[in-house]
């Protein structure tokens, strides 16, 4: 009988980099903020820029989250998603303008109530539109990416033109409600009030979304559907119905994002959704198509990057996002948090 082979298992601890690697995407946000701090060298400006970057990121996240979920669940890529942003903005701002007596009063409660009504109006409108869009535009071209891209692009054109028919071709300027105007000073940095509201709303939406996805049965089915749709159907769930629900919810969120974006810019045009789409696409690509968490991190990165670069080198602002996307795709070709498909 021969002796047992020499066996000496090594019990080395995982190196720091190995342990950090899975959390790298989450760590990128503070890392970028730190890099911005080093580059700007002025705490007050840095704080202002960081808050506005976070606010922008939150708004992009709200607009992009629906798109990424719809893709993850049904493999449907909706190039017309920007239409919901535009429609949300126009409906929301129209409601706000109707409620002029509430928005011009210097009362925080009245102002917030007006904004809330505007948001509800916008979300109802875009939700209904999402339902119609799914039925008319998307449903006939399931499983056919090329046609999906073409048809949803066509839908975007039609909706954009209809907005021009209904609201006129001119840009509409308006004022934010009284209580959301102006800035507060914190540690020597001027921070616009509205941006703080945007950050709060964005965090609330993200938290709610995570709770729905991780804590409820619907969320469980949605997550399972993203991973393996056929299996979920085989277990007897009507995935198609869930998908329509997710599509409507995503459209309504895009509408919410549209209202917030409009209040941020204080001007709306029929093409604003189309412009927002560019950032939305960058965000969902670097986040990993189908991943809500990735989308959130990606949106924050894009928002921060855009604001830092616009401060340091204004002309490079748009290019900076492309550069960010290229870098991240070189590092992780499927995006930061790729969705694992069981197939």
């Amino acid at each position, binding site marked *: 009988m021969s002796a047992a082979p020499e066996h000496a298992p090594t019990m080395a601890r995982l190196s720091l980099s190995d342990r950090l690697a899975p959390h790298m995407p989450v760590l990128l946000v503070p890392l970028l903020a730190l890099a911005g701090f080093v580059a700007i060298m002025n705490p007050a400006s840095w704080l202002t820029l960081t808050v506005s970057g976070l606010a922008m990121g939150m708004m992009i996240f709200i607009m992009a989250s629906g798109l990424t979920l719809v893709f993850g669940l049904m493999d449907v*890529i909706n*190039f017309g998603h920007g239409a919901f942003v535009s429609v949300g903005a126009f409906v929301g701002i129209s409601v706000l303008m109707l409620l002029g007596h509430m928005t011009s009063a210097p009362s925080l409660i009245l102002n917030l109530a007006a904004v809330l009504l505007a948001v509800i109006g916008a979300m109802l409108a875009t939700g209904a539109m999402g339902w119609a869009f799914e039925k008319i*535009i998307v449903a*006939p*071209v399931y499983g056919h*990416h*090329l*046609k999906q*891209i*073409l*048809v949803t*692009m*066509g*839908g975007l*054109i*039609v909706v954009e*033109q*209809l907005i*021009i*028919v209904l609201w006129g*071709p001119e840009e509409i300027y308006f004022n934010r409600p009284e209580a959301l105007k102006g800035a507060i000073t914190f540690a020597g940095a001027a921070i616009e009030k509205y941006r703080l509201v945007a950050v709060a709303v964005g965090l609330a939406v993200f938290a709610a979304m995570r709770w729905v996805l991780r804590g409820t049965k619907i969320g469980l089915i949605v997550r399972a559907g993203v991973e393996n749709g056929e299996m979920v159907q085989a277990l007897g769930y009507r995935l198609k119905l869930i998908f329509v629900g997710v599509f409507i919810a995503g459209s309504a969120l895009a509408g919410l994002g549209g209202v917030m974006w409009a209040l941020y810019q204080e001007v709306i045009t029929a093409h604003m959704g*189309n*412009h927002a*789409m*560019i950032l939305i*696409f*960058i965000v*969902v*690509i670097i986040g990993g*198509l189908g991943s809500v968490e990735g989308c959130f991190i990606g949106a924050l990165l894009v928002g921060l990057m855009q604001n830092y670069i616009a401060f340091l080198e204004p*002309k490079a602002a*748009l*290019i900076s*996002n*492309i550069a960010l*996307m*290229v870098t991240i*795709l*070189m590092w992780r*070709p*499927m995006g930061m948090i790729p969705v694992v498909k069981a197939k």
Partner: protein
Amino acid sequence: MIRSLLSGDTPRSLPLALILGGILLCLALAPFLFPGVRTVDTAARICIFIVLVASYDLLLGYGGIVSFAHTMFFGIGAYGVALTSTHMGRGFDAIAIGALAGAGLAAALALLIGLFSLRVRAIFFAMITLAVASAVAVLVSQLSGLTGGEDGLTFKTPRELGPAFKFGKEAFDGRLFGVKLNGKLLAYYFVFTGAALLFLAMLRVVNSPFGRVLQAIRENDFRSESIGYRVVYYRVAATCLSAAIAALAGSLYAVWLRYVGPDTVLSMEIMIDILLMVVIGGMGTLYGAMIGATLFVLAQNYLQNLMGAASHLVEDLPLLPELLSADRWLLWLGVLFVLSVYFFPTGIVGRLREKA
């Protein structure tokens, strides 16, 4: 002879052959059949858009890849010629260098974008091109020192291509069938010949073994990969080729207009126009580009007047005049576009070929 010129890809349908022949004849003799500044300008635009749309079809119809950066490549070619003509002085050498540099740059950029996106998923390509194209459009309008910003660049082409250059004074008394023999006529034929050569070259490409593989990948990329074709290489090569040809079309456009600006060569509207032309004409058949571009440019120039007239007719009704006004023609094109993707995915050419 014609067969080998068309690389064996004949129209295969009598009505289609007649329509294509008609378009070709009208374009070849446009300055003589329809003398007039506006009509010749329309004919030149049709020639250029045929090439541009065909190069897009090479990507969309044969490769099955959706790109939103085609106007960017078109613009690169146009700006290439404009920049060399501005800095090197007027001359054919400036045009040639500008066109080649533009095509090279477009191909290089397409290679980069393609390597980044196509190796993962073909669907990334559509999104990334959209982002890159809009960034480039903004960049061009911001770098006003180099590109003239929003105003664009006006430049001089060789004297031989301008209206001041006259020829044939002794032989024909300066006129042929009542048409003045001047540089503008030569410029038109410069554009026409360039467009025809590029179109025939593309026909050659799509009917080569390379084109076959592209179509196989479009139909089933997984299977093509299993047979042993490197799908990514073929897709990237198609992207580069299509970008280079789009850039050359842009150079022709710049030579014809003697002007480039962000709105004329880089705008998103042109991208949407190209998409409509490809889909309406028929994807996956270069002849579709010919029909689509011709119909569309004609409609763009003449249908808008008609819509204006219709809008006047219904002036008293609510909302209808708004819907029918000439500025809203994109709305109806959008509707037409969606309907044609659903009901005529093969476009006009596909329909005609089915009947044959």
